C-alpha cells in the first residue's frame, strides 16, 4: 500500500509537468501576444515589455525559467492584475471555489445516495420511477439553463434569494449556486447508487448474509451499502474534474470571484502566468484527489490490493 502511494505520488509530478507544458505550448503556439491589442504600441515600448518578461530570450530559456519557478511553488506575477502575484490571486479565489464545490458535492452525495438507495430497495415502485425521472432531468438540463431559471424564480419573481455576488460562507447567496452546481452530480450519484445497489442485492454474499439470519437493516447497511457504494466512490475522481468545470459556469452566472472566473478572464486577456498557475494548481488538486479515491477504494473493497 505504501509503495503504491509513493509510486503514485511520483507519477503525479511528471504529469503536472506534462499538463503545464501542454498549456504553455498551446499558448506559445498561438500567434500574437498579450501586448498585441487593438492599440498600436511604439516599438521601443514593445522592446521594453519583451525584455521585462524575458520574451526576447529563446523559447527554451523561457520554458526553463518558468519551470524552475513553478517547481519552487512560485507562479509569477499576473499580467492583468497589477501588482498581484498569481499566488495571491489563487489564495484569494480558492476559498470561493472550494466552498462552492465542496458544498455542492456534499449536497449531491446526501441527496443522490438517499434517492438511489431508496429507489433500489423499492425497485419499480412509484418512488423509483419518480427519482429516476428526476435524475434524468438533472442530467439533461444544462447548468447554465438551470441557474438562470432558479434566479428567475427565486430572485426575480419571489424575491426570496439574492440573485448574484459573493456573501461569505454561511449566506443566502450560496443557495442557488450550490443547487445549480450540484444538480448534475446528484443525478449521476443517484443513478450510480441505484445500479450498484441493485447488482449487489442479487449477489450471493447478500443471500448468505440473509440466510445466516441478519436483520434486513444489517444486511443493507453492512453488506449491500458497502458494495453498492463502490461505483459512487470511483465516480468521485471524475466528479471533481467535472465540478471544477462546472464552477467555471456557475461563477460566471452568479458573478462569484472564484478560480473559474479568474481562469476565463485570464484566457480572454492572455494572462499567461495566471492561466498556467490555475491549470497547475487544479491539476495537482485533481491528481492528489484521485490518489485519495484509490486509497479509499482499497479500504472499502477488500478484493482490491495494491
Amino acid at each position: 500500500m505504501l509503495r503504491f502511494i509513493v509510486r503514485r505520488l511520483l507519477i503525479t509530478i511528471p504529469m503536472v509537468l506534462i499538463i503545464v507544458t501542454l498549456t504553455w505550448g498551446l499558448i506559445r503556439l498561438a500567434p500574437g501576444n498579450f501586448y498585441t491589442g487593438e492599440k498600436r504600441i511604439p516599438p521601443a515600448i514593445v522592446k521594453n515589455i519583451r525584455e521585462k518578461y524575458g520574451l526576447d530570450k529563446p523559447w527554451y530559456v523561457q520554458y526553463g525559467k518558468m519551470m524552475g519557478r513553478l517547481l519552487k511553488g512560485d507562479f509569477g506575477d499576473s499580467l492583468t492584475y497589477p501588482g498581484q502575484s498569481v499566488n495571491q490571486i489563487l489564495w484569494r479565489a480558492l476559498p470561493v471555489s472550494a466552498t462552492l464545490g465542496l458544498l455542492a458535492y456534499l449536497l449531491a452525495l446526501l441527496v443522490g445516495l438517499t434517492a438511489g438507495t431508496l429507489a433500489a430497495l423499492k425497485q419499480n415502485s412509484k418512488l423509483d420511477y419518480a427519482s429516476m425521472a428526476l435524475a434524468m432531468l438533472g442530467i439533461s438540463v444544462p447548468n447554465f439553463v438551470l441557474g438562470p431559471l432558479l434566479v428567475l424564480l427565486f430572485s426575480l419573481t419571489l424575491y426570496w434569494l439574492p440573485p448574484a455576488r459573493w456573501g461569505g460562507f454561511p449566506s443566502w447567496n450560496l443557495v442557488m449556486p450550490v443547487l445549480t452546481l450540484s444538480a448534475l452530480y446528484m443525478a449521476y450519484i443517484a443513478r450510480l447508487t441505484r445500479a450498484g445497489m441493485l447488482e449487489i442485492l442479487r449477489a450471493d454474499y447478500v443471500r448468505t448474509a440473509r440466510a445466516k439470519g441478519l436483520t434486513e437493516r444489517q444486511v443493507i447497511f453492512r453488506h449491500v451499502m458497502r458494495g453498492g457504494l463502490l461505483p459512487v466512490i470511483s465516480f468521485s475522481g471524475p466528479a471533481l474534474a467535472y465540478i471544477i468545470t462546472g464552477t467555471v459556469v456557475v461563477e460566471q452566472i452568479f458573478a462569484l470571484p472564484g478560480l473559474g472566473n479568474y481562469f476565463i478572464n485570464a484566457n480572454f486577456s492572455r494572462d499567461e502566468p495566471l492561466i498556467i498557475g490555475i491549470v497547475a494548481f487544479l491539476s495537482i488538486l485533481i491528481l492528489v484527489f484521485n490518489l485519495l479515491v484509490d486509497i479509499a477504494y482499497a479500504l472499502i473493497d477488500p478484493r482490491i490490493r495494491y
Partner: protein
Amino acid sequence: MKDQPPINKPESDTPEPALTPLGTVSEPPIRSREGDIIHTAPEFAIGEGDVRSADTGVLEPLAGTSLWKDAWRRLLKNKLAVFGMIVLAIIVVASVLGPYIIEWRTGFSYDTVPPQMELNKAMPPFRDVNGNFSGLHPMGTDILGRDILARVLMGGQISLLVGIIATFVSLIIGIAFGATAGYLGGRVDNLMMRIVDVLYSLPYMMIVIVLLAFFGGNSRFMQYLQSIGISQQKGQLFLLFIALGAVSWLTMARIVRGQVMSLKNQEFVLAARATGVSTTRIIFRHLVPNTLGPVIVYATLTIPQVMLQEAFLSFLGLGVQAPLASWGSLASEGIQNIAIFPWQLIFPGVTMALTLFSLNFLGDGLRDALDPQMRKV
C-alpha cells in the same frame, strides 16, 4: 428452429387458424365422430408441457430473427426510448427545415429581419408590436427584432452538427486506439491503456478552453485562416469538432478494447489469420464490425455529452461565434436580459434540455435493447 411448426397457445380461442412459416393456413383440428380432437401431425410433435407454448400470447412464426431486428423490437417496447426517438426526429427535422420555412413564410431569418419591420423591440411570444395576439413569432423576438424560433432552430442545426461530428471524430479515434490496443495485447496494450488512464485524470476542459481562447474567436490564428481563404465560421466549427472529439474518445477506446479482447480468440479471427489476412485488416474488417452494438450505444450517449460541452464553451463565448448561433450561445445571450425578456433564455434552454433528455432516453433504451445483459436490472 426454422422448420418448427407454429405453436398454438392451448387456451387461445382465436377463430382464424395459425399461419405456418410458409404462409399456408394450417388445417383446423379434425374431429372424430365422438367429438375428440384428432390431432394433426404437427401438433402431435409438441408435447403439452412444452415451455414455449405456455407463455407466448401471440402467434409468432419462428422465423430466424437477426440481432438487429430483435433489438429493434425490444427498443419499440421501451416507451421512453420511443418517446425519445419521436421527439428527436421532430427536433432534427424542424432544425434542418425550419429556418428556411420561416424565412420563406415570414421573411425572418435567424440573423435578419425584413426591411419594413420595426427594430430594437423585443416582443414576447405570440405578441405583435402593439401587444395583441399574433402567430408571427411563437417564441417572441430578441432585442434586435430577430425571430427567436428561427434562431433556436438554426442553433439546433449547429448544436446537433457539432454533437454528431465531434462524436464521430471521437468514434474514429476511440475505435482505432481501442481496437489496436485490444488486438495487440501485451506490453503495447499496457502502454496504450496507461495513456488513456493518464488522460482520464487530466482537467482536459481547461486545456480545451485555452485552445479555443488562443486559437478560436478573433485570434491571430483565425485571421491567418481567413487570409488563406477559410472563413472564420468554418474555422471555428472545425476547431470545435477537433477539440471536443479529441477529449471524448477515452471511454470509447476502453469499450472497444474490452470487446476486441473478448473476440480476438474466436475461430473466425484464427481463420482470417490462417488465410493470411493482415493485422490491420483483421482489426478493421473482422473485429471492429463485431463491436458495433456497444459502440452505437455509447455513441448515442456521447452525443448529448458533447452537445453539453459545446454549449458550455459557447456559453462562455469560446464556442460558436456570432452571427452563427448554437443553443449555448443563445442561452448566454438570453441570460443578459433575463429580468426583462426571460423567453430569450427559456426557449433555447428548454429545447436543448428536451433534446438531451431524448438522446439520453434513446441511448439507455438502445443499451437495454442491444445488450440485455448490460441492462440496469
